[in-house]
């Protein structure tokens, strides 16, 4: 019986891994890759774990591969940067059990700090890469990736993009292969110890392997030629292929399932068969540059943008008009923009309300709290990559010397701290930093949807495990001054932050309150708040919290209310949408007129 399911690209990758007998999966959560490992972990008979970061994830997968089982490491595009060190050398050693690295790229940066095109990693690290265009292919390509990995003794990249990962389409499900029980200890230092003498030998093998793979690409059945109208020939891969095919159903296509290495002869034959050759690829001219280097005339980035993901409209208009496509301007309408914001009841709000008012540079990090950079909170001043905050704060504090006294803070989330904040904190104590370091510990990886990590004390499967104690850890790293604050208490938070800033040497403050969206928190219902409009003097201090339920109503015509602090008639008053309010009380604490109170039941 054929079973069909509606699967996202990510769910399909997980299913593909199950079906082809993958025994080990590791990764670190990151949009758009997160759901792959979550879905994989739900299957019975497989092992999966959240690693503290992508480098560890890849290294554990390499270990599993060398034990003889099929292993998969899953990460978002920037995660590959973290994992790049083992990546470039496992390319030399090759594998034992198949090894596949999933890189989920994010064209348009829907939820990322940069838009790097990880196809470049395939070329750079000399690792083959295949790229599915929909969920069915995502599932099928996992099996192909493992076959290539074992046949050519190489790690293999499976590249997805946000649009493939998060689109859902109908996928045929198959019975999983019987898991191979072939794990064993096999010592082979000549192949796996990359000291220079042996790396030099493996280096030659890498070039031989890439030549063999280039030959294989010519007959790889997922590199497909579809001859149709020969006036237009389009070379494409992944999601952009779908856009082009929907826009130009009658054109001829070369769809590349393997994006590196390229099938050179196939491309030459296709190019000579069609009148006008186009490359439709998002981000870098990765195919285009290589095709041009073959001496073939082709149009790509002269017509299509280098930035952002494509859509069917942009592919259609640019190729039809033969002119560089420009994106449509957003409609000229007078509604306020809706940037993402911290949730009602978010513990970060109190911390960054305080931090933003200190006369200090706040080096931030990656997580929900990054959103606090916006007005009116203005809670942080930089965000580069996972773990950057603590290193940057230390460097800035050293560079400023006495001018930086009490004016440099590094802030990082709990999951990000575990990912890559521990070493910079060690550096801060070792090199006698004078900055203030803050861990905003909300007991989860919130931005990607509540994943566990060593600081939550639960595993990917939700099972209890050792819970890392940040205070003990900090002390072991040599940080002597450690405090814990409740970020929902503004005056306490302000007092401790100020005292820690003024102190000589590095201090650590742990701002500790769980994420409002955690199930355990949702159960602790707090009563929503409301504004007593007979008391509100219109000072707008509560609006400074940028809390979604709080809004402003202008007073129109002869309203008889309390006067402002300056004794003038108020211009309006604040209101709280009780349906959204979580009752966290921050607005109560900042209110200058004691006008905010609990909603009385049935009142």
């Amino acid at each position: 019986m054929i079973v069909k399911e509606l699967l996202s690209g990510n769910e399909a990758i997980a299913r593909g891994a199950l079906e082809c007998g993958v025994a080990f999966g590791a990764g670190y959560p990151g949009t758009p890759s997160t759901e792959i490992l979550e879905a994989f972990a739900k299957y019975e008979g497989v092992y999966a774990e959240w690693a503290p970061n992508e480098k560890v994830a890849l290294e554990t997968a390499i270990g599993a591969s060398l034990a003889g089982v099929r292993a998969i490491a899953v990460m978002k595009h920037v995660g590959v940067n973290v994992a790049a060190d083992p990546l470039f050398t496992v390319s030399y050693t090759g594998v034992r059990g198949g090894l596949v690295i999933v890189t989920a790229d994010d064209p348009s940066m829907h939820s990322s700090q940069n838009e790097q095109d990880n196809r470049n990693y395939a070329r750079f690290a000399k690792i083959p890469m295949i790229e599915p265009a929909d969920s069915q292919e995502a599932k099928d390509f996992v099996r192909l990736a493992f076959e290539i990995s074992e046949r050519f003794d190489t790690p293999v990249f499976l590249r997805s993009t946000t649009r493939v990962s998060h689109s859902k389409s109908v996928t045929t499900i198959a019975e999983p292969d019987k898991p191979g029980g072939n794990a064993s200890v096999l010592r082979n230092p000549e192949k796996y110890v990359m000291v220079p003498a042996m790396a030099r030998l493996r280096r030659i093998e890498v070039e031989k392997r890439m030549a063999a793979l280039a030959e294989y690409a010519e007959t790889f059945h997922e590199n497909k030629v579809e001859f149709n109208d020969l006036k237009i020939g389009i070379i494409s891969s992944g999601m952009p292929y779908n856009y082009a095919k929907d826009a130009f159903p009658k054109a001829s296509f070369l769809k590349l399932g393997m994006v590196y290495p390229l099938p050179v002869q196939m491309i030459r034959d296709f190019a000579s068969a069609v009148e006008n050759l186009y490359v439709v690829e998002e981000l870098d001219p990765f195919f285009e540059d290589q095709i041009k280097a073959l001496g073939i005339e082709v149009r790509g980035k002269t017509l299509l943008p280098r930035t952002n993901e494509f859509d069917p409209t942009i592919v259609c208009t640019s190729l039809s008009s033969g002119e560089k496509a420009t994106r449509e301007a957003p409609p000229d309408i007078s509604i306020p923009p809706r940037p993402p914001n911290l949730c009602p009841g978010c513990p970060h709000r109190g911390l960054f309300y305080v931090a933003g008012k200190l006369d200090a540079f706040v080096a931030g990090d990656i997580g929900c709290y990054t959103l606090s950079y916006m007005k009116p909170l203005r809670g942080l001043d930089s965000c580069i990559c996972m773990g950057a905050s603590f290193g940057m704060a230390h460097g800035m504090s050293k560079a400023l010397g006495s001018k930086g006294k009490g004016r440099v803070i590094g802030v990082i989330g709990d999951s990000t701290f575990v990912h890559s904040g521990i070493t910079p904190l060690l550096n801060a104590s070792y090199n006698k930093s004078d900055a203030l370091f803050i861990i905003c510990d909300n007991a989860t990886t919130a931005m990607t949807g509540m994943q566990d990590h060593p600081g939550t004390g639960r595993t990917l499967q939700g099972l209890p495990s050792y819970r890392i104690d940040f205070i003990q850890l900090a002390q072991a790293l040599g940080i002597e001054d450690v405090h814990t604050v409740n970020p929902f208490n503004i005056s306490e938070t302000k007092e401790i932050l100020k005292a820690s800033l003024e102190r000589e040497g590095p201090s650590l403050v742990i701002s500790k309150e769980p994420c409002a969206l955690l199930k355990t928190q949702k159960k602790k219902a707090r009563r929503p708040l409301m504004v007593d409009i007979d008391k509100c003097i219109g000072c707008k201090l509560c609006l400074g919290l940028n809390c979604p339920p709080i809004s402003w109503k202008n007073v129109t015509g002869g309203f008889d209310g309390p006067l402002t602090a300056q004794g003038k008639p108020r211009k309006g008053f604040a209101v709280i949408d009780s349906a959204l309010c979580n009752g966290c009380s921050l607005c109560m604490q900042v209110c200058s007129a004691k006008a905010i109170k609990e909603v009385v039941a049935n009142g």
Partner: protein
Amino acid sequence: MNQQIIISGLGGQGILFLTKLLAQAAMDSGNDVITSETHGMAMRGGTVVSHVKIGSFLSPLIRTGQADMGFFLTAGSFEIHRAFLREGAPAVINTPRTDGPFAIDAAAIAREAGARMATNLVLLGFAVKRDLPFCTVSIMREAIGRLSPSRHRQMNIEGFERGLNYEGGAS
């Protein structure tokens, strides 16, 4: 059959659930379907748009001016994403100003029913009753029963039924 549906609103309004329901109903009525969604940082209260394409399509994204209908969870979302609709395509809008042919104060109806979080379902019921999406009432009703988490099932069904039975506005 081919139908392209755009769903637009703010993070937290149930856009993803509406997308899931339409996709399930499409499969249950024997159609192919592709959907596309917004995840991650963009969801933290920001503008969210979802594409549902029923029938023989490859690309999950709808071209400007090609959507056959739209669900808009706020009037502002309609202004932002109306360009996806082809000319004359019905726009089902949740708005207190019920002056459009398919405008309905779904939030108020949901609130009255004690199903405040089912505004999306009210909108869906309203549209299905008017034969705007491809599917029948019974197929959609079943999809809601099956896909709703148990703690929200009653609320979702209530919202959907209120939308079905809504008499005002459009006909």
